[in-house]
């Protein structure tokens, strides 16, 4: 039954980021598959870190 299917949960596994041909490839978690320029990857990384810190603070509230 549809109700028995597990809801999509937040990922607990980290994605894997690698460099390939001058780009950054993010594999996972789950179905994530993204290729970014180094600049976009750096900015994404900054934003991810900021959001992770904010999420941590929210957990303690």
């Amino acid at each position, binding site marked *: 039954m549809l109700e028995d299917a597990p809801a999509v949960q937040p990922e607990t596994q980290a994605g894997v980021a*690698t460099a*390939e*041909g001058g*780009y950054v*490839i993010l*594999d*996972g978690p*789950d*179905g*994530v*598959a993204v*290729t970014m320029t180094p600049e976009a990857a750096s900015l994404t990384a900054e934003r991810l870190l900021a959001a992770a810190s904010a999420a941590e603070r929210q957990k303690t509230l």
Partner: protein
Amino acid sequence: MALNISRHQKGARHSNRAPVPPFRSLRDSRNRPQTAQRVPRSVHGVRDTAASRVVVQMLKPSPPESERGRTSFHVFTERFLRNRRGVELEPEERAYLERAISEVKSVEQRTTLVRTGERLSNSTLLLEGFLCRYIDDRRGLRQLVAIHIPGDFVDLHGYPLGTLDHDVAALTAASVAMVPHAALDRIAVEKPSLTKKLWFATLLDAAMHRAWVFRLGRLDAVGRVAHFLSETNVRLSTVGLSDGRRFALDITQNDLSEVCGLTSVHINRVMRQLREEGLCVFRSSLVEILDPSRLAERGQFDPDYLYIRNDPLPVSPR
């Protein structure tokens, strides 16, 4: 009229063709838009359609009375719905469908056959080569939503819909048979069981679309490619174009990236991974599946949704 069928090589490869430029988008303003062209079909007195670059190489003659109904004449529909669970075309139905074909023509690679919203009066049966269905985003970047192989009725759904919500294009040089919608009207009236089987064909497309959604939504990059190649292997095996491990797949790495929603950089890495893991090699338009079971498992591929009657593969992935 003499029947001049120019049979393409397996997978419609042309060994002396020029390298295919990056196929980023047919709508990309940086590339010259390409459209299929049809020359006037004055022999049948058919009104010209809009100018295009498809060259008509032959017109299918009506079979002589003595040949009608003989399976040996079913050269165009022979692969259609071959070896499918739950459906089988009777010889009489296949002959009827053959007679419904108004023309057979060759299509150059990288040409558009049908555009979104274009009013349709024919449906296309693919005989040789590969066609695709695709949708472009606002930036002109493409998502392929289907790949069609010989034996597929590519836009049969255009018959009841009247127009399509996507484009249809040739990934490779191809041969197609045109079935006028007027002929499908007659089939609907005179051959209800054949009509049901044509409906089945559109539902097979829908099943593959569901699998496509699953592939893009739930699988990682390696899984997406593994699933697609496993699916393509089974589909081509069903129509005799794969031996279960090797098949010609004359598409570019860019095409594969548009199938799997990945960049070509990512595809390149995935193919290297598949090769290093001993699963699959894709080189020079030839796919060699080294371990079909493990490749299917990696792609979470189960061929059940393809409704194959007799499993054509040497190892059945479950």
